[in-house]
Structure formats: C-alpha cells, structure tokens
C-alpha cells in the first residue's frame, strides 16, 4: 500500500510518516504543490493525505488535477479544525474523508485504514483480526463461536482498537473518536472503563482470541492473545 502525504509542516509530516510506516505502509511525501503534482502525475497511490494550506497554492488544485486525469486515489483532507469551507469544498471536489488538525495518531491510522478498506474491498468492509471478523458495513462482529451483541459505542470502541491493533490508544483519542470531541477530558474518561469491561466480557463469550489491555491507566491496546 502506497501513501502520499502532502504537508508543508516538516514535523507534522514526520509524525504522520512515522505512524504510517509503523503500520507497514510505503509512505512518500511532498511539501509543496509543485512537487506534489509531479509525484501524483507520475505514480499511483492508494491514499493521499492532503493539507489544504500549502506554501505555493491550495491543496484543492491537487483534487482538481486528480479529477481531470481520472485518477482514483483516495484522498483524505487534512486541515485546520473548524474550517468548514475546506471540508465542504474538499468533499465536493472528490475527497473521500476529512480529518481536522489536531488529530490523534490513532485517529489518522483509523481513517487511512478505513479508506483503504473501502477502496480495496469495494463495499464489503470486513476487518479480520485473529478469529474475530468485524463488518463495519453491517455493524456486526463474530467469531466461529457466535456473534457478539454490541451496542453502538461498544462496536465503535472495538473497531477503533482493532484498526489500531498493537498500538497504544490513549483514552482521550478513544473518547474523541467514539463520543465526539465535545466530551473533553471530563472526569478523566473514567466512564470509558465500564464500556471496556463489557466489551471484554463479550469478547470472552465468543472466545475471541484477542484481548484489550489497559496500558498504565493512560489508554488501551488491542493485541492477539
């Protein structure tokens, strides 16, 4: 899987690159519009992460370029939070997703993975981890021993942790993803714990060979057991 990150902020680029490389992707980068267009023109990517504000122009130009050349790369727009215009314009011009800065690395990972899944499996959105099979389209998850009965929150938690398999997902990243960002750090996210507890119980019931570990009380990690 080849990913192109178009981002002018060097450190930001580095972070995204580190995170995606860790996930096993081949990552290339461009830090301005010119080099981005020449890269997009020559190579094919599975996914492009696109910052809208570039030093020599708007990232929107890349979307136009892709459209004109009938390129089917999945594009995730990366832009400052609250710039509603960017989001609407970007999604109208053919971007597949939008992620607002600042974001958690786990969130970035989840978005990229979801996009690649959607693109490569054309609709059937199956995520297999161990003996567990999660279908985000139908909102079901099951092992050979049976189907899990999960409420929406539990399902979201499971999917999010599964997408970030073997990576530490902090409570705030989890809360923001599942409950929305207005939940803040209220109460130090203690309320997440009871959800995790239920989820663990339900995973046990279907004999899933994965486990959710608490890491130093700062977050969770889903691993194969």
């Amino acid at each position, binding site marked *: 899987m080849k990913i192109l990150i178009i981002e002018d902020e060097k450190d930001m680029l580095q972070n995204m690159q580190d995170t995606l490389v860790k996930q096993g992707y081949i990552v290339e980068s461009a830090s301005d519009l010119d080099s981005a267009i020449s890269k997009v023109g020559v190579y094919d990517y599975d996914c492009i992460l696109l910052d809208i504000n570039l030093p020599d122009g708007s990232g929107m130009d890349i979307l136009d370029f892709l459209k004109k050349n009938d390129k089917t790369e999945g594009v995730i727009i990366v832009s*400052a939070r609250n710039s509603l215009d960017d989001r609407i314009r970007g999604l109208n011009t053919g971007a597949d997703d939008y992620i607002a800065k600042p974001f958690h690395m*786990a969130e970035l990972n989840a978005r990229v993975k979801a996009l690649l899944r959607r693109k490569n499996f054309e609709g059937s959105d199956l995520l297999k981890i161990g003996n567990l099979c999660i279908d985000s389209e139908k909102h079901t998850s099951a092992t050979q021993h049976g189907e899990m009965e999960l409420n929406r929150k539990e399902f979201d938690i499971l999917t999010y942790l599964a997408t970030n398999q073997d990576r530490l997902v902090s409570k705030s990243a989890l809360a923001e993803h599942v409950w929305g960002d207005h939940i803040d750090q209220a*109460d130090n996210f203690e309320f997440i714990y009871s959800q995790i507890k239920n989820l663990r119980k339900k995973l046990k019931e279907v004999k899933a060979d994965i486990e959710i570990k608490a890491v130093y*009380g700062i977050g969770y990690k889903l691993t194969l057991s």
Partner: protein
Amino acid sequence: MKLLNYTSRYFAWLLFFVLTGWAVIFYFQMLDEIYDSMDDGLENQKMLVIDNLRDLDSVRLKSDFRDGYYTLNSISEYSAKGFKDTYRDTLMYMKNEKDYEPVRLLESVFKKDEKYYKVKVITSMVEEDDLIEDLLFSIIWLYVGLILSIIILNNLILKKVWNPFYNLIDDLGNFKIERDSEIQLQESRIEEFNMLNENIENLINKSVRSYRSQKQFIENASHELQTPLAISINKLELLLEEDDLQEQQATRIVSVIENLERLSRFNQSLSLLSKIENKQFPEVEIVDINHLTHRILESFDDFLRHKKIKIELNEIEQLQFSINPDLAQILLTNLIKNAIIHNSDSGSIEISISNNKWEITNPGEIAIKAKDLFSRFQSVQDNSQSSGLGLAISKAIADVYNIHISYNFDNRHVFSLNFPLHN
C-alpha cells in the same frame, strides 16, 4: 433634558424677567403719559370755564359737580394769595358705575371784579387697578404667545437644524463595532456639525482598526498555535508507543499530552469564539431543538450514567428555530456540559422546553456571581478542565441569533435561553 427644551427653559426665564421689567416701565410711562394728557385737558377746560365765567355778568357759585364738570366757590383774598394750580387724584361717586371711582381734579383760582374764586375741574381718570389688570393679562398673553412661538420655532426650525445631530446620535447608538456596521455621516451646511462628523469618523475608524487588528491577532495567534500544538501532541503519542518506556516515564508523557490537549482545546475555543463573532457560520436551517436536546443527551449518556446523574426532560412544547445547526449544537452542548460538570454524583439535571424557551436546571448551594458569568475566562469553580470559554461561546452564539441567555439562582442554578418569537 433635551437640548430644545433646555434652551426653551432659559428663554422662558429670560422672557419672564424681561417682560416683567418691561411691563413695569411701560406701566409707569403710560401712566405718566395719561396724566400728562389728562392734565393738559383739564388745563384747557379750566381756561374755558374761567373765560366763560369772566364773560358772564354775574357769577353763580356751584358747590358740586351735579350738573357739570366743575365747581365754583368764592374764597378770601388771603387764601387766594399764593395759590397755585394743583392737580390731584380724588374719588368721586360715579352714577353709572355705582361706585367711587378715581377722578383727576384741577384746582385753580381766578379773580373777577375784585373777588376771588376757586374753580375745580374734573375729568374721569384711568382706573389704575383696571389698567394694571389689563396690562397684566396682556403681558401674560404676550408671554404665553412668545413661549409658544419659541417652542414652535424650536420644534420646527431648530429641530430641522439639529436634525443631523440627532441622526448622528441614533447612528452612534446603533453602531456596533463587532457587527461591522457603518455610520452614514450626513453632510451639513453647519460647520460645527461637519467638524463633529469628521471627528466621529476619525474616532470610529480608529476604533474599528484597533478592534480588527486585535481580533486578527487573536485569530492569527490561535491559528499559529494550532500546528505546533498538534505536532507536539503527536510526537509524544509516538513516543508513548516506544517499547522500552517505563511506566513512570509514560505517565509523565501522558500528563504532558493532557496539558497540551487542554491548551489545544482552549485554543480551539478561542478561535471558535472569533469565528462566531465574525459570523463565519452563515448556513442557517430550521433546527428542532427538542430533537437536538435528545441527541446531545444521548451522546452524554455514558458519562451521565457513570456520574449517576438523573436527567429529567420536560418537553412542554416543540421548539423550532432557524439557526446554524453546528452552532445550535455547541450552544446546547455547552450548557448541558456545564450542568453536568458542576453537579454532584447522583445529582440531577432538569431541562424544560417550551415553544420559545429552553431551560436547564442543576442543583447548587450558592449563586454564581452572575455579573461576568458570560464573559471570557470566567471559570466559576476551580475546575482545571474548564477553559472558561464555554459560557462565553454560548453567549456569543445566542447574541448572533438574538437569543436571550440568562442565569438565575433559585436554590438551583437555572440557565435559560429565551428565543425571539419571530425568527
């Protein structure tokens, strides 16, 4: 007191004194003139009487005025010597008026055939009390007339003259620096008004410039802060995933992340606040507030259950309002979150919705000092997680849509949103 009335009041007092003084002088002058002409008349009559008597052969004495306007008495030579014509006022019974009325009387002495006679000639005189009364009434009428004319003059002419001034006052009253409204200055023929306009224009331009640059600064600062904050948080997240990390180090990193996230949230709130104030949320649609409330409460469901807070939702009526949906959500979320955070475990929250009012109540012991409650950085209780901007953001949103937001304490904290009826 209005400018027009203010000047009118001074005019009234000034006129009062001037007219009173004038009336006194006029009265005495007129009286003087009347006496003068009366005395001339009497003198003439006296001379006619005397001439007439001298021409007669025998003089018939007349002791009263019964059949004429004079009396004639004979007097001794002694009394006649050194007698000079004298005018005086006296009273005489007037048949027509059936009363004693003042008359002017001239006494004179003349000699005929070595005999001395005293002649008294009268003429009816101005009744001073009547004169004064008449004069007083005239003066009052004049005064009232003058005052009325001044008021009319003021209201018609001065009002017209001062029109640009009053327009300017209206404009200034409606001027809101945060709304980018403009003041239409009217060119006037009056130099002072033009000077005033010019100075006001300068002042407004200066304020608008400094307001904008200040706003720009906040916007830029929060924008510029966003990227380094995001980078730092992400770097620390990557650091956390390193395998050889010890628990103590990890918790320290997490603590740094948490603080950076707080800063980042605060920063986002600040930039959201500027965006709301800049009206950068133009899309408006009719939002079902009841439905929205349900949705927000649902998203807080786990949190509420964890804190064992009971929610009592009292939907008296449906409330619909055309507003930007994102802002509507932020507005209600902030108020609900506020009620959750400032609540005790196993506490309760009451929300009531009627067709123009949305109200949220949570228990509390003492009233929050409401004065600056809705201004920036008013963290009411020592809550390290609160940015102190939540209520300010709610207020800013409410202001944009003319929703009246208020706080009350009635043994419980009550925050209300009063929606304007016509929207």
